[in-house]
């Protein structure tokens, strides 16, 4: 039954409804969106017994304060947020019951940038172009195409499943402020000087505050082009690292533009996207090159791991 599951008391800094993204529409310029850190997001779903791709709430830096509209089972995964229920601290990476009338306060981040709240039974928002994800640029999908605001009512179909499922501590990712991010070079690496490629793979870059769901702007030693920074616009994948004339890299994230006209030095491999998604401003990033084979081996391993967890949790 469709029930009001949450009333928004405080919306937090940027709280949106996200699933694994909207695919099939990039040819119309529609970005996939979806959870920035799909690893934490899927684990939150698995812990409450949902399909791993069910829509969740993504909180950024400062989480929302929500009043439960019914009894339900929830789990919060991702960056470490000081989460409380009626003033009592609750643990993340663990499913627990929430009673009607209780106040869930996700607090502010201590480590990592984003936390994911999954509700057993999912979130009931319209499916727009095959996805429940919020497109902030397009102003559609999710909750009325925008971040949550005070007094919003969120609906769901809560199912009571056995709570207290938790993740083994070894599986909980640590989000620190020094990252090594693996990349596959290309497609425009020949447009950079050899020195710049070496520099990119050896020097440290810093995440600036001008970073958001669209992209992460980094600051560091200037990357030089051989023949200018502009290309004829072409499609940009998740994790594409574009370098405009300023020589400062921008990594394209979930709400990225589908195509762009700046040279791209490389692409962040898919298993490292969640780490980057949790990076707060001033995080230092060093890039290292990996082969396609290695990146896909890691991807397939991650897929298999998720499948095993999903089966184990059912």
């Amino acid at each position, binding site marked *: 039954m469709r029930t009001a599951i949450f009333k928004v008391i405080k919306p937090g800094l940027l709280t949106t409804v996200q699933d694994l993204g909207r695919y099939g529409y990039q040819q119309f*310029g529609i970005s996939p969106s979806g959870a920035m850190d799909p690893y934490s997001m899927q684990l939150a779903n698995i812990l409450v017994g949902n399909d791993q791709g069910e829509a969740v709430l993504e909180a950024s830096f400062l989480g929302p304060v929500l009043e439960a509209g019914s009894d339900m089972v929830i789990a919060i995964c991702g960056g470490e947020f000081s989460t409380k229920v009626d003033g009592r601290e609750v643990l993340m990476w663990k499913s627990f019951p929430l009673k009607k009338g209780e106040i869930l306060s996700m607090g502010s981040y201590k480590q990592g940038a984003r936390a994911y709240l999954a509700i057993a039974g999912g979130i009931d928002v319209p499916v727009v172009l095959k996805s429940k994800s919020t497109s902030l640029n*397009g102003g559609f999908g999710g909750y009325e195409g925008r971040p949550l605001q005070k007094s919003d009512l969120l609906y769901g179909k809560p199912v009571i499943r056995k709570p207290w499922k938790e993740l083994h501590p070894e599986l909980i990712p640590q989000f620190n402020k020094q990252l090594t991010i693996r990349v596959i070079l290309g497609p425009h690496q020949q447009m950079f000087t050899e020195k710049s490629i070496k520099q990119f793979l050896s020097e440290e870059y810093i995440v600036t505050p001008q970073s958001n769901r669209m992209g992460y702007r980094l600051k560091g030693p200037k990357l030089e082009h051989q023949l200018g920074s502009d290309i*004829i*616009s072409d*499609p940009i994948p998740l994790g*594409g690292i574009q370098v405009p*004339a300023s020589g400062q890299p921008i990594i394209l994230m979930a709400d990225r533009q589908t195509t762009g006209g700046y040279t791209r030095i490389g692409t962040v491999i898919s298993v490292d996207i969640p780490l980057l998604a949790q990076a707060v401003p001033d995080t230092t990033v060093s890039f290292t090159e990996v082969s396609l084979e290695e990146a896909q081996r890691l991807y397939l391993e991650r897929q298999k791991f998720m499948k095993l967890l999903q089966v184990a949790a059912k």
Partner: protein
Amino acid sequence: MDIQPLGDLAIRVCFGEGINETIHKRVQSFTSRLHFSKINGIVECVPAYNSVAIYYRPELISYTKLVAEMENICNTSGDVNILRPIVYEIPIYYGGKTGQDLPFIAQYHQMSEEEVINLHANKEYLIYMIGFVPGFPYLGGLSQQLSVPRLEHPRPKVPAGSVGIGGDQTGIYPSEVPSGWRIIGITPVKLFDLDEPNPNLISAGNYIKFFSINWNEYQRIKNLVDEKKYKLSTYLKEGG
């Protein structure tokens, strides 16, 4: 044809350099054949000026297999039906606060703002692709005389409807976005509207022609658009 990985979940098939209709026809015909091939494991494909990105799931199809399939499609010849293209006529209010880079372009090319407008409007531009953000058309056919470098530091925001020039390209931003292009005007027309059965007002393979309007006409058309009463005028392209 050149195939490269784009990270671990996509590949890029490139058909040549530069912006021209011959290379782009190969992109279009490749994309059409790819759609019909129904290869398992492909998530979606995104055609661009001279390349196509193919997003795939390595658990369903390996990189090597995918590359072989792409080569196969490229080597198959076959006709693709091409309908006679439409020309969409798009009203633009040039210059002013919503076209703040018009003076820069005029100065850069040592011509008057009038001349820039005349060179930009009254010309049929091929829509090579829709990309960047929902409903954004990438257009071909910009006069060489209007080509300008992109901004070194992209602006964090330009308003919906802004019309810009970046390098040899011109286009319209359907929503508020960051942009490194030089902004020369604004259109009251919505290129992307989810309230419509087909959210994309225009489609690739067709053409756009701009015409210059004054501020009063801009306001009048904007009101009609808001009331959903504005009808975009179109005609069939001559000799298309």
